[in-house]
């Protein structure tokens, strides 16, 4: 009887442990599952950090991707210590809710854990120059994208090639306009992603109207494409 009792006890404890784990473990979605999920649905994805904005208030906003698509994880709960480990290529498992804010599809109210053992993955920029002005561009939302051979236009009536959001302190975003095939587009250097000491920030500060440049950035969305530019170089010949 004692042996039976012990066996039952062990069995029940094991079962309860399994139940605990199952209750806490949300199923990881593929990118296709994630894309198909409705706004406000709970989502869990494994993805690779591509970049992140500066840590703030125990939160960090992450640009992430896997081999099939990209994710924008807005204000994810994160300690400062963990934020320092979010190197490009790092595999993380993110659990949160799918949200949409002015057209930007994102994961909100998210938590995450590091996934050990995965190989790092850093996405190559996808050239979307030919998609500028086309509806298909949204299919690349949040991905690292490239725009080639863009001409710098005057930002405003002053004739400047760019504008500071904070012209006095110069500690905020930069805006500039580029054109292609007669259409002009506004791009942004997001200060919390690429601050004033970064190459791209300095490169935009050095732009002149008429320069022809190649750009890379994450295809953020705000009432239309609003890429967060991460690299500006003279256009390849």
């Amino acid at each position, binding site marked *: 009887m004692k042996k039976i009792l012990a066996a*039952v006890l062990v069995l029940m*404890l094991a079962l309860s442990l399994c139940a605990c784990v199952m209750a806490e473990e949300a199923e990881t979605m593929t990118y296709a599952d994630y894309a198909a999920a409705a706004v*406000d649905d709970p989502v869990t994805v494994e993805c690779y950090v591509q970049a992140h904005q500066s840590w703030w*208030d125990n939160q960090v906003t992450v640009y992430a991707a896997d081999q099939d698509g990209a994710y924008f994880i807005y204000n994810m709960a994160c300690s400062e210590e963990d934020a320092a480990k979010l190197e490009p290529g790092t595999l993380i498992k993110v659990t949160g809710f799918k949200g949409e804010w002015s057209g930007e599809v994102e994961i909100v109210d998210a938590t995450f854990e590091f996934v050990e053992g995965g190989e790092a993955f850093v996405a190559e920029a996808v050239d979307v120059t030919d998609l500028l002005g086309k509806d298909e561009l949204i299919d690349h939302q949040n991905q690292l994208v490239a725009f080639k051979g863009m001409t710098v236009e005057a930002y405003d009536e002053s004739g400047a090639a760019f504008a500071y*959001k904070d012209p006095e302190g110069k500690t905020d*975003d930069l*805006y500039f306009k580029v054109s292609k095939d007669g*259409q002009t587009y506004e791009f942004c250097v*997001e200060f*919390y992603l690429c601050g004033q000491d970064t190459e791209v920030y300095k490169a935009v500060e050095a732009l002149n109207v008429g320069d022809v440049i190649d750009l890379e950035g994450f295809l953020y969305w705000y009432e239309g494409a609003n890429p967060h530019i991460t690299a500006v170089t003279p256009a390849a010949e």
Partner: protein
Amino acid sequence: MIRNNEELGMRNEELKKAFPYGEGGRVRRGRMRSLSLVLLLVLLSLALTACHGSKGRAGFEVPAEFDTSKNYEITFWAKNDTNKTQTEIYKKAIADFEALYPNITVSMKLYTDYGRIYNDVITNISTNTTPNVCITYPDHIATYLTGDNVVVPLDGLFDDEKYGLGGSEVRFDGPTKDELIPQFLAECAFSGSTYAVPYMRSTEAMYINKTYVEALGYQLPDVVTWDFVWEVAEAATKKNADGTFAVNGQKVMIPFIYKSTDNMMIQMLKQLDAPYSTDAGEILILNDTTRDLLKQVAGHAKTGAFSTFKISSYPANFLNAGQCIFAVDSTAGATWMGSDAPLVDISPDSIVQFETAVRTVPQFDVEHPQMISQGPSVCVFNKADPQEVLASWLFTQYLLTNETQIAYAETEGYVPVTSKAQGDAAYQEYLHSDAGDALHYPIKLQAAQLLLDNTENTFTTPVFNGSASLRDAAGALIESVTKSVRRKQTVDDAYIAKLYDDTASLYRLNQSSGRSGMTSGGDLGPLPAGSKALLITLAVVWALLAAYAIAGKVKKK
């Protein structure tokens, strides 16, 4: 698609108009939603430590004479709404003031949101490097006051015969104390003194797609009730067979969007004469009325009739696209509202033509409308040299001159804070202009007029150390229930009891004074599967033990 937006000026996600007090100007989403309480407490404790280490600064006493033989350089921390005109107005005010007082130089540092000013002031208190003059909010000043003699009480300066408001030695035509609008000045008085002067004032307004209201079969009343808004909003959720909304034929319709949900909750409670906080800082918001309001909001969020800025986006974007009927935002955001708004963030081909009506925020009692008064104030920081403080005060007074007040008010739906400026012929001409250009955009003028007509009906919330956090909590309650029902969670008494606990903890609310309406120890929902299994296991084991013991005894017998 990316649009050609040369005509729009600065736009994009970074130029939005989100900051805690819900006024105009566009700043980054998110980061300034609320200053980290933890960070704040750390900084504050550092500041206080430093203050105590230096035994604080002596209190300010008004000098008998302003010393014009010495030069004074004062720093002015200001905020603009990413609006170049506002910057130019500040610069002109400084230049004109310096011409009047050649021994005073004013250095301006511009910020794009109040949260950063607050953060920087807190940091600089600890190193005695605060600015001389700062545009800020009374809630923030209440926190600055936790240091010794950090902020100058202005009562003595107001009344000084020579350098006070309308003083004999003041070199410009500023307002007298009686010419400051009493309701606006009252907000700046707390902890026994007046610690700021109002600079600009706004309130919230409801910008309405009147065309759609009427298409739904309703007539828009002069004063709109909450019941009316909810009823029309629910009617607007009706869909066609193809899934589009009947009222606009589009796939998107959020009939009622509120920009600043902290204001929403505060105004609802005030209109119902329900507790929020006492003047002394006792927290009363977590009560039965709040619970009922949250359930009501949740019900309408569940049907899709209601959403918020933080969850969906700017009310103006949806309103102008014909995807929203009731958009509540600051009067200082009026230039973004309507089919012909001078400032827009959406592509021109998304804009729908409709008639825009401007009304007060929804009311529970149309006979006694109540709405919040908001807007920046100016405080003066104490310094070792009283003459430097006096120079700062003179500049602060200059910001109240008609020229500065009127020029700044005209940049948005603000109103001047003095009767002197409000009654000025130039301001009246502006207000009643039918030019219809960007400066005289009718919706902006109507929004300003709304506040002028309702100044008597405005109120402010008590100011104390922690009032800014309470305000954040008020908004977070609405955001939480709205998110939860969208995520198919049940918002019931048990949910709200837990929400109250979480909110009190997160926002450091005074739990002992704020639980009057709570169902303490209520149902916390179903047990997790693991817990159930453990309990069943224990029950089975106990049953087996009992059976074993009984069997043993039977055997012995």
